[in-house]
């Protein structure tokens, strides 16, 4: 009887407080509908239009002065995107950069997340705070820092080139290269990997490790058979949180990359602020949105079986 009472009173409570659902939920709903949902739909619609003669968009209806300007809706931008191998290459390069960034982030984040999760409770918050702190500083400043470190006159550049010189290699420039882009990407996104990993690892029951040790499992076996499989949901969550923003990033290649380092983000930026081909820019953005949804779905799907295994 006691058990039955509880949900009943809760639902009454919910109902009583929900009469003003539109009063408190309405304003944010409307705001987001107008300034987030509507613009996204507009972008989708724009991807099927013709570009205007001087940038922007061509009219939807035929021009009144009888000019032969294109109008109406079209799939042209999509055909254009899939017909030119150049765009396929840019998409592939972006994916490669995103994959390598995710992998490096995982390798760097895992030991740290594990250490924090296994530290004494009173140190954990401080250690996590120390991870978040640099991440809270301005995004451009964090990229700019690497311009200094990798610059031609920097200590690191001199050091690397001195070593290369000893072995008879030609000197290299670190800045304005794919290498610099990768470092920048890792630096900007690393906390996105550390935090979900830590959240997962912190929940692990140490009893399992003790049991494995008692049964004769060595350090590596304990890690690969117990900790790693249990941490997979955290790994996939972190991977998605790194992979997705890297796909749309334009500032890192813009500042640290060379002329060849053009990613999807740079391509989109150029369509809107450079060549002003809005329909093509919208098409690229729609494709990027689809890719993001696909990866988010994939990450959730991959994380699921191991969640079941644990419970």
């Amino acid at each position, binding site marked *: 009887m006691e058990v039955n009472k509880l949900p009943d009173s809760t639902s009454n409570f919910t109902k009583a*407080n929900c009469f003003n659902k539109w009063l408190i939920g309405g304003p944010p709903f409307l705001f*987001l509908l107008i300034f987030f949902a509507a613009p996204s739909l507009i972008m989708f619609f724009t991807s099927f239009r013709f570009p205007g003669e001087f940038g922007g968009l061509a009219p939807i209806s035929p021009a009144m002065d009888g000019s032969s300007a294109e109008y109406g809706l079209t799939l042209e931008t999509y055909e254009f995107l899939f017909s030119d191998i150049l765009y396929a290459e840019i998409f592939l390069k972006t994916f490669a950069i995103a994959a390598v960034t995710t992998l490096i982030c995982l390798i760097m984040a895992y030991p740290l997340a594990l250490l924090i999760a296994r530290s004494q409770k009173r140190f954990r918050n401080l250690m996590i705070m120390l991870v978040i702190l640099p991440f809270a500083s*301005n995004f451009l400043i964090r990229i700019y820092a690497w311009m200094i470190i990798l610059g031609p006159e920097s200590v690191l550049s001199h050091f690397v080139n001195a070593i290369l010189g000893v072995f008879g290699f030609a000197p290299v420039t670190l800045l304005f290269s794919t290498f610099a882009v990768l470092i920048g990407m890792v630096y900007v996104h690393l906390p996105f990997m550390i935090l979900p990993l830590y959240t997962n690892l912190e929940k692990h029951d140490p009893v399992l490790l003790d049991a494995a040790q008692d049964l004769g499992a060595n350090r590596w076996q304990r890690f690969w058979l117990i900790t790693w499989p249990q941490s997979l949901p955290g790994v996939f969550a972190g991977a998605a949180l790194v992979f997705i923003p890297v796909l749309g990033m334009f500032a890192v290649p813009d500042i640290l990359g060379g002329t060849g380092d053009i990613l999807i983000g740079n391509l989109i930026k150029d369509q809107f602020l450079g060549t002003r081909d809005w329909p093509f820019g919208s098409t690229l953005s729609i494709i990027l949105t689809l890719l993001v949804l696909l990866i988010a779905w994939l990450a959730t799907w991959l994380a699921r079986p191991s969640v079941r295994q644990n419970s």
Partner: protein
Amino acid sequence: MSRNNIALWAMAGLVYSFLYIPLIIVVVYSFNDSKLNAEWVGFTFSWYRTLFHNEEMLTAARNSLFIAISASFLATTLGTMAGLAIHRCKLKVLPMLAFTPVAMPEILLGVSLLLFFLQVLNMTLGLFSIIIAHTIFCIGFVTIIVRARLQGMDESIFEAARDLGATPWQTFHQITLPLIKPAVIAGALMSFTLSIDDFVITFFTKGVGEPILPIQIYTMIKVAVTPEVNAISTLLMLLTLILIIIANKFDTRMLPGDSEK
């Protein structure tokens, strides 16, 4: 076992250095008496002095401050409402609308707003369009923080208030609001930091003629790097640090209530 720990600590130390050394370098060079970010010549405040005489930079700082205050006010109000509504009413569409802008690449929000402002609203881009854009992605963060606070609370308090004859407004004003206040303040401070630091969305929704801090920094980095960039960076880092310490104070005050459960 201990060898294992030493290896872990060593790797963790490397990662922490990787996180902090670049920022320390930026700060150190802001006091360097040389135009190049290379050799240490001597200590100086001259880059800060140049900065404070840079009229455009001061306007940019004022503009950014105005945008951050407006956007965080709007986002905190709307985000708190959304958090309450989502927690109370088991809504489906509102969480999607509030959380998606947080999760997707910023560039998508930037270009869709650019299209919307220019094509549909036919308006001139400027401070107003930036405030709207910042509000959109800050709402989600405030909603998350407020909802987390509500989830950690004992629902019977509200029931008690109702049983004692409080109207919904009285319950909200005297019970709910004081209880979620730490979360609201933390959300406001977070929105402020996010807004003043945002580059990508600002880049797409900015107009011509109104200097904005991150855009000024971007231009300086792209065109002519001087240690003035280091000086403004150091000041911005200091501001963020102070805000985080304040926000954290409010955030930890949330914890005792949660652990009682």
